[in-house]
């Protein structure tokens, strides 16, 4: 059960930082609480004070007006799932959000909370990693932005200083001919394996490609050799299939975590299966954006 705690509900970032400082190291920021309250219930974390960031304007809203996509940290999975703006700018993210956890978690869980918690199987982290997203952090000492690859340090560990608040996520706009897709296979609540692909197609061939895997290794990971293997390939079915096969071979070097989903071998195999479908989905979008 949830242990006792005090709750602060600041109305500004300054108030939030003040509340955090006042908690003397026993405080934590909370948004939807779907992850944080769960670990508190299970006795894996104790905090005397929780600081609710849902009231902060800076963490709200979806903005696609300047080309790049900026999603406020307290935006729920459900809001992203239903956002017409995101559907136009980044349909792969909408599709991903539709399948995060379950309908109840999507109602209250936030994108910022998901990334800040850094659960190793995070769906958004994997796709956003491949999409070169940046997290925006703000603390008493100022604001900064970090690439997701620099932000995620390990399972449940990020580069966020304890007093900093993750205020939003900034994703580069999809360029002409760029497609981004995500796919996962799940046998239990969390995925067994997931793959994100971002690639650019020009004149019928892949000119750039980034492949990330999730739920395979300790944290979501960009697999550079897999992306490299896709570059230059024509997007016709046969050459694409060959390129995908070469790219999957790169997964062989991954140190896949053995768990209830299966052995390392099997999980690498699943990643390969996903790579095929995800690549094709990315190519379809890329072609549509030509």
């Amino acid at each position, binding site marked *: *059960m*949830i*242990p*006792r705690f005090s709750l602060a509900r600041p109305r500004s970032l300054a108030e939030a930082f003040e509340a955090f400082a006042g908690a003397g190291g026993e405080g934590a920021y909370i948004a939807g609480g779907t992850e944080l309250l769960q670990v508190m219930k299970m006795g894996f974390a104790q905090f005397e004070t929780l600081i609710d960031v849902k009231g902060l304007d800076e963490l709200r809203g979806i903005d696609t007006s300047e080309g790049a996509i900026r999603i406020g940290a307290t935006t729920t999975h459900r809001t992203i799932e239903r956002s017409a703006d995101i559907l136009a700018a980044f349909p792969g993210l909408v599709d991903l959000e539709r399948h995060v956890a379950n309908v109840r978690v999507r109602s209250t869980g936030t994108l910022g909370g998901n990334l800040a918690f850094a659960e190793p199987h995070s769906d958004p982290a994997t796709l956003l990693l491949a999409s070169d997203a940046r997290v925006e952090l703000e603390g008493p000492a100022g604001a900064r932005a970090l690439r997701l690859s620099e932000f995620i340090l390990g399972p449940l560990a990020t580069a966020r200083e304890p007093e900093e608040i993750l205020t939003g996520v900034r994703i580069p706009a999809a360029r002409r001919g760029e497609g981004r897709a995500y796919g996962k*296979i799940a*046998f*239990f*609540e*969390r995925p067994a394996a997931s793959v994100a692909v971002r690639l650019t197609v020009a004149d019928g061939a892949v000119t750039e490609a980034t492949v990330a895997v999730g739920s395979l290794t300790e944290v979501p990971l960009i697999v550079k050799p897999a992306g490299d293997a896709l570059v230059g390939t024509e997007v016709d079915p046969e050459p694409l299939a060959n390129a995908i096969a070469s790219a999957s071979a790169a997964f062989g070097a991954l140190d896949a975590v053995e768990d*209830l*989903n*299966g*052995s390392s071998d*099997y999980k690498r*195999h*699943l990643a390969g*299966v996903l790579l095929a479908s995800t690549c094709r989905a990315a190519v379809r979008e890329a072609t549509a954006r030509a």
Partner: protein
Amino acid sequence: MRRIITRPEVPSPIGEPVPRRDGIAKVTGTARFTVDVALPGLAHARILRSPYPHARIRSVDVEAARRHPGVIAVVSAEDLADVHLVYGHAVADHPLIAVDKVRFVGEPVVGVVAEDAVTAEEALRLISVQYEPLPFVQSVAEALAADAPVVHERPGEQRPHRGFEEDIERGHPNVCSSSRQAWGDVDGAFAGADLVVEGEYRYPMCYAFAMEPYTSVATWSNGELTVWTSGQHPYMVRDDLATCFGLSLSRIQVIVPYVGGGYGSKSYTKIEPLTAALALRAGRPVRLALSVEEAILTTRGDAATVRLRSAFDRDGHILGRQATILLDTGGYAENSPLVGRKAANRLGGPYRIPALEVTCDVVYTNTAPASSFRGFGAPQVTLAGESQLDEAAARLGLDPLELRRRNVLAFRERPWARARGIDADLDADLTLAAEEIGWNEPTQPGHGKAIALSASDAGSEPITTSILRVLSDGSVTVMCGSTEIGQGSSTVLAQIAAAEMGVELERVRLIQSDTAAVSYDRSTGASRTTTLMGLAIQAAAADARAQLVEWATTALAPDGPDVVAKAGGVEIGDAFHDWGAIVRAWFGGAAGEVIARGYVRRAGATEEMPPFWEIGCVAVEVSVDEATGEIFVERLVTVGDVGCAINPQTAEAQDVGAAMMGLGMATREELVYQDGNLMNGNLFDYRVPRTTNLPEFRTVLVERGDGVGVYGAKGGGEGALNPVAAAIANAVERAAGIRLREAPFTPERVWRALRERDERLAAERDEARRAGAAAADADRRGIDG
């Protein structure tokens, strides 16, 4: 749903899909479960549990916990000197709280009672227990090793409710009980066989996952104990409470409100003695509500390894079966001695087997205790037996359906001497399953179909009573010890009473599962309630009608004419007098009632055992994703051979639910232990079926009036689960050419089998090419001379 009815006509409302009586309460959220029981002064308990699989308890320090504000009592075995701590209805080996050692991770060691649950939880962290870890055994193989650590140094005393007469045999110190079933000349059968199929099959440790975790509320008053509990067998619980607290049965009241799922996992005693002990020390009513994680550590299903050999003649007749079964019962015996016995009994299935030898050892390990669970040995052994029938069919070139037809027992044929003859037309059931699955229709490439059967000696023991009261307005109250665990007993039993007394269903009230208010029923399990409690109600109704006829004679027609019993009343000459009128006339006022009773015991129709056979008859069509190894059950057919479906809607519902549970166990469900710890004792990592796993169902209810119950009824609710794993294994073999012997058939297990198949096929092709090339060479050499 398809209904096949050849039984005689039945009186309304028998056979009608009347809406469930608990429906409005359940869809409006007003149905009361144990966790909804509110009492003044209710205190809340939390339990400190062992972190070790096997350890001596050296010391327990609770002083800081006792001083925590809001704590009422902190209780370990040391504080219960006045309580007989060890209980167990079959083998008394289970202390309600750990005494000198712990035998599994999660075993209760200290209980805290506080004003609220969060205070109790905080106090747990203030308790310090010193353990001396001991070597532990995590598997049956480890437990049976020559120098294995011993889980129970002293065997528990065997007890009268174990469910069988014979003494419990043990061998190795970690064997809890051994059972054996044997007849005929097994050696001869195998010596003379045209085909022997051998294999080892594994069935996982499963968790029933009743969505309501174990919850009990206990309160003491004037030395009398009242317990509300989410349990299936209030009278069995009462017995154990009597033993623990030295009370007569009459001074204990066990009340079971609606139960949020049972499936056998709430059979017999669970946390009631612990809750009562905490209430005793606290001097307050206490609620102990376990979390799902704690519930998983309280009771699970027996894991099984079955080594089976089947002998066949060339026409596919079974000549003999020989098997050894090992069941893993975890740290305590619970009901596993009976599960073991039933597993041995059920290995023969619904077949004529001239020679059989089965031994079943139930083995202690340092894991969570295993007890009753839906199927009760049948799912485990049916996987083995039905798999081997299909393997034999393939090797003999026979249709698996035809092979089964050649072996099923005939109606009333005894599976073994002195057992009740099969009370089902198995051949006809097979035909129905085959029709519904489209056995003779072409199967899509990549798909496979299979039919599987099981037969279980069900019904447990016929020890059941009922009280039926006819009130002064002619309405009827029936008192039954059966519990409503979701199966619909609260509706079905009322239907029976209404039919027997000839009164409208709306005028019948059923009072259930309060040991102080109703009369004795052994248990709600083994699919026995419709059959046995139905018979008790029928007997009570007959008693009521007999009294009412006598009363009518005395009060209304002492000098004639004859009184003739009719539905709902009597006819005297041309006049009809309803039951209420007779009651009022006999008492001479506007008041009074009839008290009638029915007894069911090992006599008459229920002398022969088992009371009935529960048949499992399912068919499946599956496809296999060759890339991931996932099995998709596309279609699932259940044939419910129930004799008479008192309420066809509830009967069908049971079959669908049971089959889905079987599907879960066959494809995904498995508790995994590592280093003595349960790795997936939660719903994140233990996967039960979702809506997305729902196959296309075809359900059939067959009613031939061939059971011993009212209107020829038999029981249901477990049969449809038992053959599902075997059916899926066999269908996968037909779809993908792989033979799976270890359930659950997880994606990786399937994927590896597919890769081995591919390697095998590639090797065979290479071999064929080499042979072909060599032959060509030889030909050439021959030609060249």
